[in-house]
């Protein structure tokens, strides 16, 4: 069975074509700058064939049409005809409270998704455009939606509610939802598998550290807490997002800088985080280089980034009554050995005996990085959100 996984952003589409027989990737690629100058598609086939095509791509429908065209083309294609695609799985950012698991996409489901658009005005509309494009171009192919928020729907009210008037929850759905659900689910399942343990008996803390970053407390296989909230701004310090911030400080800033809602949104989403503190870049590699060259603000940014993760690990261990395994994943979690080492430094009191030597220089592989007799295990598990979407889609359509 062949499954196409689609992840539509506001001006981009990422895609992967899976052969579920062995979960191999037949082709993957990206459509960039949709509706803008200089749009292009990059496609990479499993045999190494690579192509970059430039031209006008006015909307998501057209972008997906070209992707399908490339996938069935003689020269760069991976399949002979569109009928070979058995199902399409979509990443959907926000499922609100309506979706606590992946779903088969029907008209009713699309209507429900439209109802939660307000909660993710930047992310959900392009996701819906992707679904509409597939419905339009290959109408008979079953589709599934996999939500970033669904995995965290198991959180209890005491962890998902904000301490603000209750009516704001009932009227507008203001609560914590959490994101990166597919990633937290994948790496927690995978680490249990790698450790040969039953996930329903484990307390796992998963640290998804990418440009966006979140951390989750997974007890007995279900998410009981996570650091992102109503929006992906809450929680850890990120590339350009501030993470946790005193709301009082925010209203004070708005008053002092005399700025409105739009500029405030840009301030906390794009000018803050590692970029805002270091003044160097939002890319951790650049900031690490600057820090090594003695840039004090870059050094501060790294210390803050690591300290925030440490605090969350501590609090989630408390929330679960202990922790059996801590997992690092995402671009930074998988590759930045210094970040991992600095986060894990000082967790001996918790029973985590981190293997600093083994950790040093390790990149993107499934490996345990705590010492053999460590009570709390520490692992690197590269994430694979696309595979989660493909697996869920397979389960739903078969």
């Amino acid at each position, binding site marked *: 069975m062949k499954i196409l996984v689609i992840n539509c952003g506001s001006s981009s589409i990422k895609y992967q074509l899976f052969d579920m027989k062995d979960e191999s990737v037949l082709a993957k690629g990206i459509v960039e700058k949709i509706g803008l100058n200089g749009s292009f598609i990059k496609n990479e086939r499993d045999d190494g064939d690579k192509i970059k095509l430039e031209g006008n791509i006015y909307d998501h429908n057209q972008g997906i*049409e070209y992707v399908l065209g*490339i996938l069935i083309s003689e020269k760069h294609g991976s399949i002979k005809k569109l009928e070979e695609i058995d199902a399409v799985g979509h990443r959907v950012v926000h499922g609100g409270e309506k979706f606590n698991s992946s779903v088969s996409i029907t008209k009713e489901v699309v209507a429900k998704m439209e109802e939660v658009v307000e909660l993710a005005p930047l992310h959900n509309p392009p996701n819906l455009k992707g679904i509409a494009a597939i419905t339009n171009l290959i109408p008979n192919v079953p589709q599934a939606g996999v939500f970033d928020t669904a995995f965290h729907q198991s959180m209890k009210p005491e962890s998902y509610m904000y301490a603000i008037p209750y009516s704001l929850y009932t009227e507008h759905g203001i609560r914590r939802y959490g994101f990166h659900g597919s990633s937290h689910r994948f790496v927690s399942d995978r680490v249990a598998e790698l450790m040969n343990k039953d996930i329903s008996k484990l307390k796992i803390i998963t640290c998804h550290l990418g440009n966006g970053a979140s951390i989750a407390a997974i007890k007995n296989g279900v998410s009981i807490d996570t650091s992102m909230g109503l929006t992906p701004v809450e929680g850890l310090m990120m590339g350009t997002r501030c993470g946790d911030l005193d709301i009082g400080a925010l209203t004070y800033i708005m008053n002092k800088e005399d700025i409105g809602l739009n500029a405030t949104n840009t301030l906390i989403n794009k*000018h803050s985080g590692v970029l805002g503190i270091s003044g160097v870049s939002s890319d951790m590699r650049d900031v690490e280089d600057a820090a090594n060259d003695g840039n004090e603000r870059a050094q501060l940014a790294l210390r803050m980034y690591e300290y925030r993760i440490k605090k969350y690990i501590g609090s989630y261990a408390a929330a679960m009554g202990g922790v059996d395994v801590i997992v690092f994943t995402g671009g930074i979690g998988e590759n930045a050995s210094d970040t991992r080492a600095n986060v894990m430094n000082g967790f001996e009191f918790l029973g985590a005996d981190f293997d600093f030597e083994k950790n040093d220089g390790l990149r993107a592989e499934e490996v345990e990085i705590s010492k053999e007799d460590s009570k709390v295990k520490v692992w690197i598990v590269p994430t694979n959100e696309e595979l989660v979407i493909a697996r869920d889609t397979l389960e739903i359509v078969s």
Partner: protein
Amino acid sequence: MKELLEDYALNKSLKSKTGNIKAGLVGCGSMGQEIAILISKSGIDLTIIEVSEEKVANSLKQIGLQIDQVISHWGMTTGDKRAILSRITATTDFNELADCNVVIEAINTKKWVPNQPMRKAVFKKIEEVVCEDCIIISNASTVVISDLSGGLKNPCRAIGVHFISPALNSKIIEINRCRNTSKETLEFVRRFVKMIGKETINVYGSPGNISTRLIVPMINEACELLMEGVSTVDQIDKTMKFGYGMQRGPFTMADSIGLDKLTKWMEGLYNEYGDTKYKSSPLIRRMVRAGMLGKKSGEGFYLYKDDRKIEKTGSIFRLGQR
């Protein structure tokens, strides 16, 4: 041979053209620059026409500076700036407008003159180079659109669209159609306004739209209060700002519009409606003569230093001593 993306289109392609808009802008003074940033920020390619190479260069420079200003107030990022500037080309050659779907006239006239011959000439010049279905827009707020479109071969394509400064922040745009404006033109412009992230306010054939007709008498009346010695500039502004929840008081607003531009609005409205409530206050006329044009000249009802507003004490009396 380079491969073409189009070769990979599926046969049943809908070849959607939505979003395929290229815009033109004739005249790029301070308001034109705001419009340019707003349009290109929305992912639309833009060609700017100015009268001389010097003005072309200056427009681009000022657009860069305006964006820097927004960035310093956290409203954009340097990445946004690069994207915006990559979408803008500026020239003196009207022929460069040939492939535009929509062209906006935003020229600066020194004085208000009846019948607007300069704007009319620009409208005609635009029509000579653009394609048949290109929409022609005027940003002038107090003109009669049917007057401007009168000289066009196809007057149905003309419409008034009033961008309110600061164009980036203002949530609405007034669309002023006249009796000639076709349904297609109106529909296109509504779509265009939505694309650039604004809400449409529909106005039918009224010079001054809604915004200018309401703001002009208020500023005039504020001048009356000041001249009568009822209160100070700052106190009058505060009353409207905090008493009625306006973002800016009438004097701050007048300074940011520019008193010269305001005078043109007032003359336009007075000429059209003949009502003295639109006739420019003698105080404003004196200030314009004295070169006190508001924020742009560094002095108006307030003093401006390093982009900061400083309250003047007894400005009305100081004016008398000059």
